[in-house]
């Protein structure tokens, strides 16, 4: 809602306070001011009024909040002369037929108005609050709405047939042309204001065209009524109409505010349109509601707010908000909210008022109740993720004892590793030492499965190994993930002959786990010197950040022979603690490339002993005209190559991000790659057989 600061200043003494002060106070009290705009003296506050505070859908309600916030008095408004006498001079005959949907209906008659434009100050005030000026009579009713928050309606009294007002449900199929010129079909669930023969307004939502104020209007019937929120809401929904009036009636209006709204309306009609109020007010109010008194226990205030504001502060806070306080037995207070606070229904609502008035920053921060659980142990979490990843890759989870036989794990720890930790009272010799590697147990399990006739064995275990520490009597317990793999390298299917698992299958599984646990780390492979692994078909994965985090490959043929393994078994072990010691890369989005990638295939001949890693290192050393990656796409040995030579085709993929690459740029880069490969890796480009360049 747009609120004029100057208007507020007419309603409450804000001497010495600015719009900004008012905005800050309102925001702190739960009526958030989204912005303050306008020049000094004509500031407008954009107020976000919560759904439970319809009383603040008018300047008066906002002024009341400021009055409470700053302990400033509300300023009296000039009131029109009292209107004693018979009901609206006996001219209007008013009856509520649907009392359940309209608890109160008041009307006054203002005679002899001259419909015309409003003065400039009224137009400006309406525009500041987001409304357009229509004519002085309609403007008067809008000013009432904006000031009191109470929607009123002005009828052209001459067009109300028989001078009768009936507040009733619409008949089936009954129609009305509303102010927006639309003919609407109503029904029994719609409450209407009707005259003797037809509906003249949809109650609480929109007036009818027939009784609209026009240039010829002389006598105005002013309606100020209370309508049932649920009924207004469903009618507004049904008709697809959301009006300033329905917005307020849906949320609930002050049942006693109708009189003040009437008074203001009459005063404005006299002032702006030159009318004269006929004596007498019609007030149909069949069953006035008794004031709602609530019990408030000081103990409850303390329990809910988490601090004790004290009884005096509690009483003061409530009193300033217009809540009448009496003492109740047992130290409790009996609080009677003002009629405009339709939201105060229970004890907890009053507690909120106290807390709100005193300020939420006074509520202490109790550490215990908002205590975050300690973060899960990263290593334990890594173990779980390793299990999930490996099971997802097709491995079965094995469990092995943390104990093994003396010397059993020597082949899988480095020559310089500390010795096994010895159990002083082992249960059996095979379980006499604490393990330093999970691989011996997995090998035993693989062997047993193979002996049972399993064709494919894929096992993993995640568990701790125990390494002796010099400085500490407690061993270094390191979580490890181990895998053992025998049989096919990919799922078996009748459509293809099974391919036996090889080093590259194993490396793929290892690197998938490394990437799953710590993404974005660049791992380099070098040959492993563990005595249990094939010296030329095994690797250690290491990175500058983490060091050696994994190792594995084919078993050393000597070990395989001594274990009596007839089927080749590949093994790998990942040290999760080492892996987690590296800083992983945050996964961040990069814009997708918009330009076409350029690819070139280069076929190199490598002689015996020359390796892919050296070749790609040489290629990476060449300055590229765009971000580049390399993929090995083909490898070939045999005629016409010499013995020990291999041909390796590397696909070079350039992905420009800023400008399309030109042919000379690409050609220059390609020549640079060929030269570097030859110079640094001893790889020569394959002559006439180079595949055609393609994009």
């Amino acid at each position, binding site marked *: 809602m747009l609120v004029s600061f100057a208007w507020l200043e007419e309603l409450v003494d804000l001497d010495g306070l600015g719009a900004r002060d008012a905005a800050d106070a309102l925001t702190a009290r739960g009526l958030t001011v989204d912005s303050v705009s306008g020049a000094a003296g004509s500031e407008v506050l954009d107020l976000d009024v919560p759904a439970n505070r319809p009383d603040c859908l008018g300047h008066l309600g906002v002024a009341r909040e400021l009055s409470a916030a700053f302990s400033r008095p509300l300023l009296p408004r000039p009131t029109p002369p009292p209107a004693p006498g018979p009901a609206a001079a006996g001219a209007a005959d008013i009856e509520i037929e649907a009392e359940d949907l309209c608890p109160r209906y008041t009307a006054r008659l203002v005679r002899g108005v001259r419909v015309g434009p409003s003065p400039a100050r009224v137009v400006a005030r309406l525009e500041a609050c987001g409304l357009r000026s229509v004519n002085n009579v309609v403007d008067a009713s809008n000013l009432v709405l904006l000031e009191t928050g109470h929607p009123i309606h002005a009828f052209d009294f001459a067009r109300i047939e028989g001078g009768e007002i009936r507040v009733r449900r619409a008949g089936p199929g009954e129609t009305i042309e509303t102010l927006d010129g639309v003919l609407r079909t109503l029904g029994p669930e719609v409450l209407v204001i009707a005259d003797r023969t037809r509906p003249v307004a949809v109650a609480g939502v929109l007036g009818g065209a027939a009784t609209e104020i026009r240039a010829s209007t002389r006598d105005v019937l002013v309606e100020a009524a209370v309508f049932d929120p649920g009924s207004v809401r469903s009618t507004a929904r049904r008709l697809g109409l959301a009006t300033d009036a329905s917005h307020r009636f849906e949320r609930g209006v002050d049942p006693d505010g109708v009189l003040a709204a009437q008074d203001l309306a009459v005063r404005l009609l006299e002032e702006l349109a030159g009318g004269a109020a006929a004596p007498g007010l019609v007030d149909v109010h069949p069953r006035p509601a008794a004031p709602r008194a609530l019990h408030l226990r000081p103990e409850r205030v303390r329990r809910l707010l988490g601090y004790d504001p004290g009884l005096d502060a509690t009483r003061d806070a409530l009193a300033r908000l217009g809540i009448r306080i009496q003492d109740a037995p047992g130290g409790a207070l009996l609080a009677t909210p003002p009629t405009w606070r339709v939201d105060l229904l229970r004890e907890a609502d009053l507690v909120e008022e106290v807390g709100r008035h005193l300020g939420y920053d006074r509520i202490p921060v109790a550490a215990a109740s908002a205590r975050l659980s300690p973060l899960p142990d990263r290593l*334990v979490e890594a173990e779980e993720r390793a299990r*999930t990843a490996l099971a997802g890759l097709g491995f*079965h989870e*094995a*469990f092995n004892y943390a104990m093994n036989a003396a010397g059993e794990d020597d082949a899988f720890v480095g020559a310089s590793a500390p010795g096994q930790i010895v159990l002083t009272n082992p249960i059996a010799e095979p379980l006499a030492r604490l393990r330093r590697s999970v691989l011996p147990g997995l090998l035993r399990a693989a062997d047993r499965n193979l002996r049972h006739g399993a064709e494919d064995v894929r*096992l993993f275990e995640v568990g701790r190994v125990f390494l002796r520490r010099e400085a500490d009597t407690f061993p270094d317990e390191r979580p490890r993930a181990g895998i053992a793999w025998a049989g096919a390298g990919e799922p078996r299917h009748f459509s293809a002959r099974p391919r036996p698992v090889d080093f590259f299958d194993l490396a793929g599984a290892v690197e998938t786990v490394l990437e799953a646990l710590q993404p974005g780390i660049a791992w380099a492979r070098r040959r492993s010197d563990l005595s249990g692994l094939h010296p030329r078909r095994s690797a250690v994965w290491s990175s500058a950040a983490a060091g050696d985090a994994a190792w594995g490959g084919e078993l050393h043929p000597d070990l395989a022979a001594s274990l009596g393994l007839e089927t080749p078994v590949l093994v790998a072990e990942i040290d999760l603690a080492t892996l987690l010691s590296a800083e992983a890369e945050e996964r961040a989005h990069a814009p997708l490339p918009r330009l076409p990638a350029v690819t070139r295939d280069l076929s190199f001949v490598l002689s015996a002993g020359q390796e892919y890693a050296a070749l790609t290192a040489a290629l990476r050393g060449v300055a590229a005209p765009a971000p580049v990656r390399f993929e090995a796409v083909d490898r070939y040995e045999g005629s016409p190559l010499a013995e020990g030579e291999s041909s390796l085709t590397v696909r070079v993929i350039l992905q420009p991000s800023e400008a399309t690459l030109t042919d000379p740029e690409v050609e220059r880069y390609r020549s640079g790659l060929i030269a570097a490969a030859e110079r640094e890796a001893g790889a020569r480009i394959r002559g006439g057989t180079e595949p055609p360049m393609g994009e």
Partner: protein
Amino acid sequence: MFRDLERIEREFEAGLASAAGDPGAIEAVRVRFLGRKGEMQALLRRFASLPPAEKPAAGKALNALKTRIETAVAEASAAAAAVRRRAEIAAGGLDVGLPARTPWRGSLHPVTRTRRELERIFRDLGYTVESGPEVEDDFHNFQALNLPPNHPARDATDTFYVEGGLLLRTHTSPVQIRTMQARRPPIRMVCPGRVYRRDLDATHLPMFHQLEALVVDEGISMADLKGTIDALWKRFFGDDVRIRFRPGYFPFVEPGCEYDVSCRVCGGRGCRACKGTGWLELGGAGMVHPAVFEAVGIDAERYTGFAFGLGIDRIAMVRHGIDDLRLLMENDIRFLARFPA
């Protein structure tokens, strides 16, 4: 001119008919009539030399015929392509009953699955999951748990010792001690993990898995313990599970108890799994002994707490109907593969 148009139309229709839906023959017809050196082009060239008066009528007829031929050729080509696709469909059938190419599916050990399920319930209850070393010292495994040296209850657990005076933890309770040493109440934690006892027979393995729960706060009572155990097993086994508590002795709790749940195998009538009693003994429980609080420096006047334990292997066996404990450590893929991840 018009005679030629009629002739061309006749010949085109004959030619298209004799192509008989053969794509090559249809293309030949198209070239003959519509190609750059085709009949229509020839006619078009003659059209240029017609007297102006004849041009409008001739042009109209010429265009009409050209459109007709183009349409007919396009329709014939489309029909031929459709016939070819029908033939390919007829020839390219698969035996869809043959085995699928299925990616590998690994498995998680039944003990892991059960542990995760239990942890999940405790996490939902607001507990943290803690871990600690498997090689422990005497203080954390015994003394802090009100088991001073020479305490008779130490005989009950056969402990593995390692060189240097350390031991393999006989229960996960030392993690409770370490957690209470590291953090102040309120504490709500569980500690699952491997534990070791020097025991090996048909119903005992030297390594198995425990989970213990610990809650320490102001105002914690036996009622909270019962409520928590009740909630845990109702969530795990279902709402129809019955739970009973019997007084029991553990040095680190006072009052102490053991708790049983109605047998999930026989429903309580009595079977091999419950040794005919209708009840499964799941573990011990009780209120944290003041001596334990003293050992970790927690004010036993201000705080109270409960703890209870369970054997994960046992629960996994009941859960999955596993009748032989040794299967859990044999790593037989035929067994493991029954628990796909």
